[in-house]
């Protein structure tokens, strides 16, 4: 399990890094999406892996070691929603830049080849 999820984070992150180094704005937005998946997972696993132990339905006196870490979950939940907001902002920026400059290159102009 650990190896699988670690490798997967690596693959997601590598794909994202590759994409944000590309010259077209759409590639960058997809790259940011993938990086945010990888980073969210990364933060999430800081609470270690636990199967079938959601931090729910606690009763007083229950052994708290039986539950998954709620802190990383709360952090990631806000991160997901903020991620949506930044994606939206980036998308609108890239559209505006495209409308103003007539190109979808990240620098706002085609490279002088």
């Amino acid at each position, binding site marked *: 399990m650990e190896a699988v999820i670690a490798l997967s984070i690596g*693959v997601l992150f590598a794909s994202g890094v590759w994409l944000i180094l590309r010259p077209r704005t759409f590639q960058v937005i997809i790259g940011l999406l993938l990086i945010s998946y990888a980073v969210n997972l990364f933060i999430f696993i800081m609470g270690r892996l636990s199967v079938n132990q959601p*931090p*729910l339905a606690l009763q007083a006196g229950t052994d708290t070691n039986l539950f998954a870490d709620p802190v990383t979950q709360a952090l990631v939940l806000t991160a997901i929603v903020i991620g949506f907001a930044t994606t939206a902002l980036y998308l609108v920026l890239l559209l505006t830049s495209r409308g103003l400059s007539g190109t979808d290159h990240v620098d706002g102009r085609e490279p002088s080849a």
Partner: protein
Amino acid sequence: MLLLVLILIPFIGCIRAALQPSSERSREAWLAAAVGLIGLAILAFQFPQISQGEVLRYQIDWMPAYGLNLVLRMDGLAWLFSLLIVGIFLLVVLYARYYMSPQDPVPRFYAFLLAFMGAMLGVVLSGNLVQLVLFWELTSLSSFLLIGYWHHRSDARRGARMAFTVTASGGLCLLAGVLMLGHVAGSYDLDVVLAAGDTLRAHAWYRPVLLLIALGALTKSAQFPFHFWLPHAMAAPTPVSAYLHSATMVKAGIFLLMRLWPVLSGTPEWTWLIGGAGVATLMLASFIAIFQHDLKGLLAYSTISHLGLITALLGMGTPLAMVAAIFHTLNHATFKASLFMAAGIIDHESGTRDMRQLRGLRHLMPITATLAIVASAAMAGVPFLNGFLSKEMFFAETLLVGSSSNYWMAFAAVVMGIFSVAYSLRFIYVFFGRPASDLPRTPHEPPRWMRFPVEVLVVLCLAVGMMPALSVGPLLQLGAQAVLGEQLPHYDLAVWHGVNLPLVMSFITLTGGVLLYAVLRRRFNLAQSSRPPLLHRINGQRLYESLMLGLRSGASQLEKLLGTRRLQPQLVLLVSVCLAAGVAAAISLPSVWTAAHSTPLDLPFALLWLLGCVCAVAAAWQAKYHRLSALALAGGAGLVVCLTFLLLSAPDLALTQLMVETVTTVLILLGLRWLPPRQPQLAPSPRSARTARLRRSRDLLLAILSGLAMAAISYLVLMLPAAPGISQFFLEQAVPQGGGTNVVNVLLVDFRGFDTLGEISVLAIVALTVYGLLRRFRPAAESMALPPQQTNPADPAARQIPEEQVNGGYLLVPGVYLRVLLPMIMVCALYFFMRGHNMPGGGFVAGLLFSVGIILQYLLAGTQWVESRMHLHPHRWLALGLLAALATGAGAVLAGYPFLTSHTAHLELPLFGMLHVPSAFVFDLGVFGVVVGATLLILTALAHQSSRAHRLAHANDDTPHQEEP
């Protein structure tokens, strides 16, 4: 307490003055005068205490642990300087009332002047060294603003910039010096520092501390080699020159040297550095002053030379020299301020300050002429005037310091005296001769009250000169006592000490000066020569200009070398640095590669992630030419992430991720329409193909390395046992304190509610930004036409508007069931919302679900159909949501609890049974509102673009020759 008032009223007056309408001239002056009078009253009230030798202190603790407090401290020296600052301020205000022209924005002038006075009082009253530096920089700043007051003039702007650069750089040196001094002394408190003189002088840091503080003081007091800024500062209005650049601000450096005299002086280094700078300055500046043609220029160089004299006195380091320095500071302030005012009057009434044109003013303005002649005589050191007394003390000290064998110092003093007599004569000469007829205006006496300040100051010169012991004696005693304490020497303020060596020196200087002036005038055509002989090559200003130029070109060179505006190299750099930093940090970590904590491998999970990884890599592969598939593939990876959350005990995350995934996909789909079509390049040149291949290999390597690093760190973390964190606390306290069994939700809306409040604010801001950006959106010309898929003639739907497609076209079936689904989705959202505190759900999930329900209707029937039936007002959702969240927090504050404290109530309702209503519920309602508002605002703003683009496209079809709107 009175000290605090003394410091604060100038600043209050400054704000008050700045708010006055610019047409008010007298009211401004009255306001400033009132501030000055209050200050004077406070000083008078404190005189009895100060004269008893008391030190008044007022302290407000700010960061006591770091020794940073607001300390106001008034001893004799500070009192004396405060008197100088406030007294001359009053005279200058009166003078400026008549000097400033009606066209000038007077409120700004008085506001700056008041701010300067406050800053200057702050410098002299500071009981904490760091605080002193702060006020010190404030004086530099207000001086900058005042020199640049006539900012339409380029010389004013340049002079202001130069003065600020020099004095503020000095201020930075001073700050460093003061910090080191405070470190050595163990405190920044002035009383402690003043007692630590012996410690400092023996410390290894003594030389750097002395050098840094001296740099601060010498730049401020315009000492060689930093003297060049002062003549350029004369571009300021004359009241400013009289106040800042002769009487007060330039004396700040002197004040600092006096203040720290007990700590720093008494070493050969002090004498060489301070005394050397002083002597060099007084010789150089008094010589250059003779050759000025501008009245104010002459006065500026003369000021520099007199400051040099005071600095030289301080450098000698004997107690008697200190007394003389304080005495000369007072004398110089009186005669020089009056001379500046007189020069201003001449300028004001005749329209020029050029001494080559001015002649015979004695006949046209007899009273002003008399006053100015008396003041210049004081400057020259004529007996029975105050300048004579302090200069005599200076001569006596120069004789003393060189002992009986070394007369160089005394010689320098005599030479400087001769020069100063010569330039005083040069100044006086404008009043003699035949009246000039070629002046821009015919001069006459100024208004009565404009001359009054000059009269006051000249009377003071006379009073001090004739009855020194009666007039200035007690004040001088106060100041000297404060600095010297036990060391206070016996001195005798009298006009006549009998015939002695200093008197002979005075006599030599007077006759020598007259002779020098006569010779220069006859032989060397002084009236017309354009530059001082010999010394014009020593040009600090040119040095400054070339230094500034070098800095600027160096910076642009560096920027060209190191900077780029292109995003890709920046990102490459960013990723590389992060990678390197991570690797460097990882080297020191323990390597745990044993599978000690491994959870047994779950085959479906591994397969799931195989799929996820394939999706991610494929998305990366396809994102350039196949945007739609890349989006779908990225969404696939997102779904795998979502399932992972579900499996790994995070149902809330899974729900949120699923909804966000949906909304994001819709969002990007809406945006895809406006991106340019991308065709594969046909035949790139071999060279560019090679560089492109190189670039891609580099990026690929970087990506793979980052991925590996990320995987390695993740694995490493997972192998290490979890450190005991704060999670246990939340798990234990969620029910007793938060009143909910879903710990994640309790965390979000209760324990970490403030964080969530910040987050929904960000969400609202982003939504409004998106809305604002899209209001001004101009789609590119080629993406305005309908896409080919929608105009295919073979498709019957192409001729229908979306509404017709739903109500009778090919979307009839989905139309029916999606409309049936709408209320169900709403109920679902409500359900998730209500149970959020105890079970997976909550405001975020419910809000997203609610938005998805509405967006589905948009997708189905188009914006027009939906919006003609539903009025959504996403802005109001945003506002109400934020208000609800804030109101929850404010409610807790009103009830006496910390912000956002939660309270739980259980309501017994018929039909529903027991209802669990925590106040966090209202907060969650706020979250819900903001999420719905933000999502809908962003998506509908994007969706509206296509209907707008159609209108634009149609408008273009109708009038093909018009410019694109």
